[in-house]
């Protein structure tokens, strides 16, 4: 067991005028996850700490937060990898309104997600069986199928921080997953959204999104491919 000093940004809009730092000392294993340290605080030290988590195994994408200044999943990072001089700093995601402590309002994020129509669009009759696709066609958009909508990418993007109207990396990744799917026919409507002034052109290729993605998706590359599709008028 090691001692970890947790510095957590707290904010309760019903009580606090501005955010403050809550400091807690916990004893955890170096191989524990940051989420375990947060549980230790919530369950044994201060039950008023609010955080969002569900599966706790890097699949549901609920517990994305800023850990030592970088967007990470708390269930994905081990104490031994994050501890710096005995301390770990944890803040809520940037660019979204804080509801309480580490919980942010995800609605603007999901509104952008819905705007790109994240479902297969194809009105033709598939016949008596499923729509077929070659392994190559499936591989074309494999990377972007990994997205778990944790918002780590979108809330690490300076363009999104500056302008919440920007559709954001996550929505573009989700759009990429369908635009480059040979079975999909909804590219025109999606590119109507992504070709707009708050679409892909807001991206300045900062690469924060790629760095932040807990699933290792090459987000900036996917955005680049969507830009290229719009610029050339062709989906390859």
């Amino acid at each position: 067991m090691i001692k970890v000093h947790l510095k957590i940004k707290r904010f309760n809009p019903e009580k606090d005028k501005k955010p403050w730092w809550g400091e807690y000392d916990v004893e955890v294993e170096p191989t524990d996850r940051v989420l375990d340290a947060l549980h230790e605080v919530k369950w044994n030290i201060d039950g008023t700490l609010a955080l969002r988590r569900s599966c706790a195994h890097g699949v549901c994408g609920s517990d994305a937060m800023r850990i030592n200044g970088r967007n990470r999943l708390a269930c994905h990072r081990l104490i031994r990898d994050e501890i710096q001089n005995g301390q770990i700093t944890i803040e809520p995601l940037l660019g979204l309104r804080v509801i309480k402590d580490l919980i942010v309002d995800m609605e603007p994020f999901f509104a952008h997600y819905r705007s790109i129509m994240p479902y297969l669009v194809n009105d033709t009759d598939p016949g008596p069986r499923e729509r077929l696709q070659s392994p190559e066609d499936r591989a074309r958009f494999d990377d972007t199928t990994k997205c778990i909508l944790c918002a780590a990418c979108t809330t690490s993007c300076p363009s999104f921080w500056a302008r919440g109207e920007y559709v954001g990396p996550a929505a573009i990744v989700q759009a990429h997953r369908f635009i480059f799917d040979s079975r999909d026919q909804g590219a025109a409507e999606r590119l109507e959204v992504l070709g707009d002034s708050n679409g892909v052109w807001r991206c300045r290729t900062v690469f924060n999104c790629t760095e932040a993605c807990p699933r290792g998706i090459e987000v900036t590359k996917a955005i680049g491919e969507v830009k290229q599709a719009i610029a050339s008028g062709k989906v390859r």
Partner: protein
Amino acid sequence: MTTMNPSAPRPARPIPQGRNRFERAMWLFMRFSGLALLFLALSHFGFQHIIVGTHQLTSEDTIVRWGLAGESITLAQLFWRLYYGVMVLLAMLHGLNGLRQVAYDYLKNKVVYNVFMAAAAALILAATALGVIALIVGVNASGAAEALAR
């Protein structure tokens, strides 16, 4: 029954363009003008400071290269006027669009943004026009004579 042929090349599917084509045009402009400026600025630097040489550089070189106002010009002088004309035009418009992006980030109020961009565009376009006119007309003869006399 449809058969799968994994080795078949995937044909490029055409995609229709959205209604808003301005941002796409601006994005392409930034890429191409950026590339062009890289070449123009570096070759300008190479010519001025390496071929001519930083310490040999005088206004006489410029006068010889551009030609005097009102006089007929040679093909080489026409080339240099076009070269710098294109450089001034691209640099100023490239900068104006960059400024637009920054202003869009920071000026959340639409009226403030529009007023700022109108003023910025007017100033930058006026400065660009001045630069291009100076290049088209050529070096002022009396000014040049003074410069040569010095």
